[in-house]
Each structure stands twice: as structure tokens, then as C-alpha cells.
């Protein structure tokens, strides 16, 4: 059971990371494009942190793709990475905890 909880935690973290990273990956996201609600709620530090972490990460990924001489828009590959990570993480988390058939039930048929 413990290993499943660990896999679930890693899966959820990967899913969240990939999901939040998506806008920075492909759409040249900036802090100004984040929802205005963050400003209203005085959460600018959160916006700064998100922009700093994910903006830099996406740029690093793009640089890595440049080194590999990737053909096409680099941002699309980074987006594929982000969505792939999110899907994989989410699926692993569900697989680790989302089953109710751990023990098979066997019914002995009564013959007439």
C-alpha cells in the first residue's frame, strides 16, 4: 500500500507541474497574462514565482531542443512534454489508488 501512496503522490505532483507549465510552454506566457484575480487577491508574489519558475523552465527546454536541432516550433514540443507529463502523472495516480478490485471474490456455484 505504501508504494502505491508514493506513486500517487509523485503522479499528482507531475500532473500539476505539467498542467501549470502548459501556458508557458507554447504561448509565450508572461506575468501580465495571468488572471487579474491574482492581483485583486494581492497574490502578486505567487504570480512572480510562477512566471519565474515556469518561464525559465520552458526556456531551458527550448534551448535543449535547439541543441537537438529539432524541426518545427520548439514551443510545441515543450507543450507536448508538459501535456505528456500531466497525462502520465494523472494516469499513474489513478492507477495507483483508483481500483476497488484488490481482492477477487469467488462464488462457488450451487449445482442443481
Amino acid at each position, binding site marked *: 500500500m505504501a*508504494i*502505491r501512496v508514493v*506513486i500517487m503522490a509523485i503522479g499528482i505532483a507531475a500532473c500539476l507541474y505539467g498542467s501549470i507549465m502548459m501556458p508557458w510552454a507554447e504561448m509565450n506566457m508572461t506575468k501580465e497574462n495571468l488572471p487579474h484575480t491574482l492581483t485583486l487577491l494581492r497574490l502578486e508574489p505567487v504570480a512572480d514565482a510562477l512566471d519565474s519558475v515556469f518561464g525559465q523552465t520552458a526556456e531551458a*527546454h527550448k534551448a535543449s*531542443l535547439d541543441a*537537438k*536541432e*529539432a*524541426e*518545427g*516550433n520548439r514551443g*510545441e*514540443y*515543450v*507543450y*507536448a*512534454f508538459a*501535456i*505528456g*507529463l*500531466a*497525462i*502520465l*502523472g*494523472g*494516469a*499513474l495516480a*489513478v*492507477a*495507483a489508488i*483508483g*481500483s476497488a*478490485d*484488490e481482492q*477477487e471474490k*469467488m462464488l*462457488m*456455484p450451487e*449445482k*442443481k
Partner: protein
Amino acid sequence: METSVWTKVFLVTEDLFNKIATSKYNPLYYHGALPQFIMYVLFLSGLLLFAYYVPTIDNAYVSKNLVNAFTSVKYITNDIPFGAVVRAVHRYAGDAMVVAIVLHMVRVWFTDRYRQYRWVQWESGIVLLIMVLFIGQTGYYLIWDERSLILTRMTVSALETIPVIGVGLGHWFLNGRAISNLTLSNFLFIHIGLSFTLLFGLWIHYVRMTRPVITPPPVVNYVLMGLLLLVVYLFPITATKMADLQSLTTNSMDIDLFFLFPYWVLSQTGMFGFWAFTIIGTLAVCLIPLPMGAKPIEAAEVVNTKCTGCTFCSRDCPYQAIEMVPAPAGSRFKLIATVKSYRCSGCGVCVGACAFDAIDLPNLLDTDVTEKIKQLSKAQS
């Protein structure tokens, strides 16, 4: 019955996956269904690519951005939103399909599920694999870069060595006596036409199975899609050069070992080695079930006096080995079960399905089996 070492290896691996992902999401239980899911991914991504692909080699107006196969692929990759990702997904899904089919074959082989009544599945599976390999190879011709030209020339050379029909086959392949615009049309026709023919092949593959598992659970599909997208990022599409028909030199090229290994064999061993590898390899895989299929099976037997014609056994049989026929004159019931012994695997599912003790395995009586199960369940609890 003795369990082989390989069967034990698979059982231990299955058990490990069950511990981590539970039996509901164990990918090893869907090894036959995974290639089918990948096929849907290939169909969908292929449809998107097909919308913009132009199957010609004419490059007279390339300076004006007028299109041929190569420039249309460039356009898809560089100008269509997510074109590069869709192209990469199409390519790596093809590789994943080969991997999934080979894993499916290996597991079926080592768990002894290819013998006797399953020979149809084995042989049709090999035909499907060969079709998939050829479809993948034609996909590499369609890009019409330098590698496509080398592959086309190697294929024509190999076909022309076949006695009597070789030259004709070469002309069929090129859709003429030399490479022309019609050649790419032929490649596209083979690539797409053969892909749809896979569906007919799959029908034959499933025809003797009552309930084939053809759809993995969504979670397994998501894992596969996630992995595919990560591979797309890790190994992005790279730029290549357009094929030049005037070039007579054979340059080196990257080999995708999933699809292009026959070309690697051809380059390493020459024409004789290539044909020996292809013919002997194919025959060996096709003939595997024959010497190994001689294990006698005691087919289930119906006790006619007890059968009520309820059809439970017929519906439960995984191999369509039980047919319901009209009961003989004088019977109280309309139907009676009959066993097609050549399809029966002796699995005993029908014995469990029958509520009237009307079907038995000759050497494994129902009462003995029930008693043994009761003993085992008591011992476990």
C-alpha cells in the same frame, strides 16, 4: 501439468504489476488490445497529416514554394499548428505499435496460447505484423527526403532479383518504369490502403474468439499517450534534405530499427543474405505452432440426456467451440449443445457454465473439480 520457466517469468512479472497498479490496470492483461489503441492514434494523426500531404516528386517550382511531397511535409512541420508534434506522434506511435505487437507475440508464445485451435490467431497475427512493417516502411518513402530515395532504390533492387516476376514487381512498386509523380501516389495508396486492410485482418484475427479484449482501460491508454508525448519531446523530428533524383551516390542514412531493419540486413549481408533472412525468418515464425501443436486435448463432452438447451455453455465458451443445434425428435427441449472438438481447448469454462451437470471434461469430472476448488479455498482461508 509442468509450468515452463518462461511462463513462470511472465507470471512473476504480472504479479509485480498487480502489486503496483492492481489487476484492473495491469498492461500485461491488455497486450493484445494495446496495438489496437495505437492503431487508432495512427489513424487519427495520419488523417491530420493526409489533409496537407501532396504526393508528388515534382520540384520544378520549389523556389516559389510550390509543393511536392517533401515541401508539403516541411509545411506540415513548420507552418501547421502542432504539425511537428502530430508528425512525431505518428512516427513514434508506429514504433510503439511494432513494440506492442512483438511483446504480444512473445507473451502469447511463452504462455502457450498459440497452439491448436489458436493457430488462426497466430498466423493472422504474423500477416498483420508484416503488413504493419510494410505500412511503416512506405511511411518513410512518403517523406521524400534523401533516405526515402535510397530506400526506394534498395527496394526496387531487391524486388528485381526475384526470378520471373521481379522486374514486374519493381515496375508495380514504382508505378511505372522509373520514379515519377505516380510513384508517390502508389506509395500513398499502399500506405493508406494497407492501413485500412488491417481492419479486415483484425476481423480474421478475432473471428474465433468469443470475447476478445480489444480496448484497454482509459488509464492504460493515458499512460501510453503520456509516454508517447514525452518521447516526441525527447526525440524531436529533425530536418532532412530533399531527395535528388540526379544524385547517383548512395549516402549513409539513419536507420529506424523498428521498421527499417530489413534494409540494414540488406546493406550488411547483400541480396542473398537479405532474402535468406526474410524467407527463413518468416517461415520459421509461421511454422512455430505446427511441431508444438501436437499436444492432445480431451475435448468436452455433452451428456445428451441432461442438456436442456439453455445455451449458457455456448455463450460462455471463449473459443466458439460449442454450437447449439436442434434437439432430436422426442426431446422435451428445442436445442441441444454439441462440441466442435477441433476448437475445444479443454479449458472447462463450459463445465462451470452448465447448471445441470450436462457437460464434462472426460478426464476431469465436474464433481472432482468442484471438490478440489473447495479444498483449495479452505486451505487459503
